[in-house]
């Protein structure tokens, strides 16, 4: 069934979009990532103009994250306190990131920087996570207990706060800094930042994997809602028909994903996320290294 999208001004297959939305929704509910880094290239591929794809994607993530976070709320795996601290840092970081982005745009070659950013970050994060979770799985097989949480310099910082759901009693400074850092990267790379936030929460803040997914989704809702409004009012590129088609699939997928995620072991969840991150990284790296079939590309004027 073909449907004409009023803002994107292209005609697309409705079932294809429902399927895509569902697929990305499952990942979203499982791993606590928005899925923008997967969906946006897929939308480019089926012929949606890039500006519309990026903006509409933000709107769809609001829906699937909201759906996912409700499922996690029921299981009490959302740390609202931590989420709020991260969100405050994240919004500050995003504002800073927009400034950095505009500065880089004035220097030219912002596209290249974004792609290199992606490859480097995804490569490092994915690689480290993969090795860590592989070790964790080996250790549990051998029957070794996981190493106890160590006290380090982070625990010496002031402004301590108790995060009961995460079982942490730490200073608010590290979560704030993580929020700012992810916010900056998210603004530069044009994504919600879930795939950076999730590993940061696990490894830098030491939060339990189960809580991380719900908490990440909680803060993604606000970041992407903000992005949607920004795109809708300044670029007029949010296509509501496209969004509805994607989010119908997305919200259902997110519910399924959240249920799969709860049934899985933390190490398995982490290793799958690591593999997915590495896969995206590999694809981007290949794009940069292999000669493209068409050297030329078209874009709206004035956007260099």
């Amino acid at each position, binding site marked *: 069934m*073909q*449907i*004409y999208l*009023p*803002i994107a*001004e*292209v*005609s697309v297959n409705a079932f294809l979009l429902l399927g895509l939305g569902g697929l990305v929704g499952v990942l979203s509910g499982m791993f606590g990532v928005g899925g923008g880094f997967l969906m946006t290239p897929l939308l480019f591929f089926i*012929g949606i103009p890039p500006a519309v794809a990026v903006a509409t994607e933000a*709107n*769809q993530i*609001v*829906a*699937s*994250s*909201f*759906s*996912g976070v*409700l*499922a996690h709320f*029921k299981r009490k795996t959302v740390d609202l306190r931590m989420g709020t601290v991260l969100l405050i840092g994240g919004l500050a970081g995003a504002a800073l990131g927009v400034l950095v982005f505009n500065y880089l745009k004035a220097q030219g*070659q912002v*596209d*290249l920087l974004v792609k290199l950013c992606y490859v480097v970050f995804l490569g490092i994060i994915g690689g480290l996570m993969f090795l860590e979770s592989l070790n964790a799985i080996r250790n549990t097989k051998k029957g070794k207990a996981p190493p106890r949480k160590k006290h380090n310099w982070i625990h010496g910082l002031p402004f301590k706060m108790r995060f009961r759901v995460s079982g942490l009693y730490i200073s608010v400074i590290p979560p704030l800094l993580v929020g700012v850092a992810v916010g900056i990267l998210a603004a530069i790379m044009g994504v919600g930042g879930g795939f950076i936030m999730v590993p940061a929460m696990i490894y830098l803040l030491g939060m339990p994997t189960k809580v991380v997914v719900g908490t990440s989704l909680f803060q993604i809702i606000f970041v992407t*809602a903000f992005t*949607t*409004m920004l*795109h*809708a*009012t300044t670029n*007029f590129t*949010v296509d*509501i*028909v496209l*969004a*509805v088609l994607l*989010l*119908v699939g997305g*919200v*259902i997928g*997110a*519910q399924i994903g959240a249920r799969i995620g709860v049934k899985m072991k933390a190490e398995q969840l982490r290793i799958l996320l690591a593999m997915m991150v590495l896969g995206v990284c590999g694809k981007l790296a290949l*794009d*940069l*290294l*292999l*000669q*493209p079939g*068409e*050297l*030329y*590309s*078209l*874009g*709206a*004027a*004035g*956007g*260099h």
Partner: protein
Amino acid sequence: MRALLFAFVLLFALPLRAEEIVLGLSSDQVSIDTNFDGSEILIFGAVKRDAPTPDEPRLQVIVTVAGPSEPVTVRRKEKRFGIWVNVDAVEVDQAPSFYAVSTSTVLGLSLSETEDQRHGVSIPRAVRSVGAPMNITDSESFSQALIRIKSASNQYQLNEGTVSVDEQTLFRTAIKLPAALTEGDYKTRIFLTRGGDVVAKYETSIFVRKVGMERWLFRLSRENAFLYGLMSLAIAIAAGWGASAVFTAFRR
């Protein structure tokens, strides 16, 4: 003597000019609704003339349909430090969003190079590129790339031999409009040529408009962007909540 000369001029000159186009369109309006999946427009007409039909050179018909023009930036990738990056960019000043040329015979035979240049009929002539940056010497290859990419998605079409001409008087053709169509006035031109020269020209417009929900949403997004944004978010939140509620109900 002067009168005789005048009559002489009239006799030989007029047949070249005295051909006129009478045009019909299957519809001069294309409505884009939610189910829009491309459209076909039938363009037909007749040649009205005061003098008998000249046999040679034969009458040829060219029909062009052009969508609204807009400037487009064409970028080219190059290998730098081992990776492929966008290096050069050329702005093509005017590129129609859609352009179709249909002819009764090979375009090169029915239209001379000078007439093509004057009227801008062939695809390369319809795409106008004026200023390329100083450091780019082969700006031609950028416009060629634009045409290549647009042709691949059927946005630019050269349909040679698809206009049928009967008795040098009646002509008709069908133009296929793709599903990815933008709104606007589509300028439609019909040329009658003989021996490569344009002997008559007719211009009209086909109006492509969004209707119904498509039109309403599009206008809302431009005229009341804040409300549109809030509406998008409300739908997203409602859908997210709805799915959650349905799934919870299933589990009970």
